[in-house]
């Protein structure tokens, strides 16, 4: 089996890459910085004896991202699974984000992600199980005052995955997207959150255990599905007060 983990050097992405290496997958992992990519690729090669290629690319610049990922994809060849664990958020994302920062955020959370899918679509194995696994957020449930562009990007990504599911009907490609709750990563470190944070290792284990599941959107932890229903049906006036 061969898999690609975009954003595989930290958080959930790193744990997914590790879990795949344990299962013997050959890997292509990407990360923003070469030092992190080198450290992760060496660690996985040495510990698990699998083939690992690394690529340092910055998803906030979609033009360079597309060019360099395209070249790496051609070199890596046929794949089974594509994991898209990239994303970016900012405390300043409250509606007044500077244009260049807004474009970078849009690229990291949406554009680069769907471009990666476009790039790899021709490399999915025709004879073995294949899948694209994307990551949304509970922030995408409803419009909000904080993480404005982040939430909008994730909602757009969900729409793309809905389309991908339809396009892939009748093929061996599944399109799974997870709405993740609070995960215990660097981004959430030190934050006081209303619900418990989940260990990224646990998230990775769950995702790898469901690779043969059907296409569609799933929540993790699952209780977020109930919270999402409540958040959606709350009348606008009350929701505004909750957001203030």
């Amino acid at each position, binding site marked *: 089996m061969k898999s690609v983990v975009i954003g595989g050097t930290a958080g959930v992405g790193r744990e997914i890459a590790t879990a795949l290496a344990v299962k013997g997958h050959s890997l292509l992992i990407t990360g923003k910085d070469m030092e992190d990519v080198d450290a992760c690729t060496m660690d996985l090669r040495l510990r698990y004896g699998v083939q690992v290629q690394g690529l340092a690319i910055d998803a906030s610049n979609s033009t360079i991202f597309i060019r360099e990922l395209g070249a790496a994809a051609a070199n890596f060849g046929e794949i089974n699974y594509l994991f898209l664990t990239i994303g970016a958020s900012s405390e300043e994302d409250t509606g007044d984000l500077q244009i260049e920062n807004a474009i970078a955020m849009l690229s990291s959370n949406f554009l680069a992600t769907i471009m990666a899918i476009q790039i790899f679509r021709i490399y999915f194995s025709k004879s073995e199980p294949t899948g694209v696994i994307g990551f949304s957020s509970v922030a995408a449930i409803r419009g909000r005052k904080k993480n404005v562009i982040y939430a909008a990007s994730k909602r757009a990504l969900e729409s793309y995955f809905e389309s991908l599911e339809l396009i892939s009907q009748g093929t061996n490609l599944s399109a799974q997207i997870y709405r993740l709750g609070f995960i215990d990563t*660097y981004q959430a*470190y030190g934050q006081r959150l209303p619900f418990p944070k989940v260990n990224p290792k646990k998230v990775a284990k769950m995702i790898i255990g469901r690779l043969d599941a059907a296409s569609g959107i799933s929540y993790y932890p699952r209780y977020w599905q109930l919270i999402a229903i409540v958040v959606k049906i709350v009348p606008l006036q009350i929701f505004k007060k909750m957001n203030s």
Partner: protein
Amino acid sequence: MKINAPEISIKQENLSSFDNGVKSTCAIAQPDRYRHWASTPRDSYQISRGAGLSLSAASFETESLSVSHNKFNRILDFDSATGEVEVEAGIRLFSLHNFLVANGYFLPIQPGHGQISIGGCVAADIHGKNQLKDGNFLEQVISLKLFHPSHGILNLSRASNADLFFLTCGGYGLTGHILSVRLQTQVLPSQIVVTRAQRFPDIDSGLQLLNNEATKADFIHSWHDFSQTGKKYGSGMVFMSNFEAIDEHAGSPSKTRSVVPKSLGNRHRMPAANLVVNRFSISALNSAYKRINSTNMKGKRSDIADALFPIHHLQGYYYFLGSHGFHEYQILLSKDVAADYLKQLGAVAAELKIPITLASGKIFGGQQNLIRFSGEGVCFAVNFLRSTQANVLLEWLDSNLVLFGGKPNLIKDSRLPRQIAEACYPEIGEFRMKLRNFDSKRLFRSQMSERLGL
């Protein structure tokens, strides 16, 4: 100094030394990318934190930012021909051990629990199972990468930045953040270790036996029963382990069991331990320990992991020591005075009605310098519970240690007074001077460094 680190995520956490002697609410950061190191504050106090298992509060201080290395736990390089391995400082011993053993190598010098980080071992220049034969952890360190906000990333080895290399190995984290370490491992002679125990009737004969056997064993330590009085005081056993000869047992397991120890913390400890721990219960436990280990008399085969990390099977001991905490007092004494000091210790402890829960010895060799716990003599450790009476015993231990010309292990004691460290370590002034020459702001501070005035 107020912690000023706007570019790095921080949380407040209640931290305590492993002996529960020091408790503080401290700021912690947990970087997970190399670029985060550049965001560590340039003008705020800080200190590295590995597993957080130090007995001496070496990884936190109220006004310092503790920077966790938990996410920097990767293996960066390995040469299967030479056994050289490079790892990030946050890697735990058991994780590295599992990798090395699978490749036919091991680290002979390791402390007794696999949850301890490599960075912590370098910083405290710990000793292993036979210091006389192997030396301290420094012997295994080829080079390391150190990050200091004022100096950037520095490559240190015996050939490059040698002064800073020796200041960092055994420098208790005060020179900067150790990012990675290149280590010389040894070929694993066998996956099986055979341990033989030999009984001794008193403290004098025990130390004599330990000294006689130390050069012959791969791992060796003595265990003493300090609950006994009179002539039997300090009786016990010397445990001597050697790697099994390859052809000794044709049926040796071909695959070594991988080690995944339970987490070793200080939060889950027995409440009101002082109601249970007394001379009678300790005496009963010691008798049971002797009985259990009598099977070792003829030689007990065990996995290398069990020999290197014996505390994995003794974690209940720390629960038993209670939530109020305990003292570990580990000292290095010259061989000609060790028995006298330990006999007097027993008399004072008995008079104060303080049960000694553990007493154990090793033989040390080599030269001592700066503030590392090394040199020639008998290394001896005792444990006892925290109490008002224990403070009286500690005063006696400290003042007599100076009189007997001994040295305390700085990393094992969260309350050791500055004047005792100064009286016992003649090069402590040189350590301070070298540290200030490198870091005039003295950015790296822990409760331990503040207490000892380092």
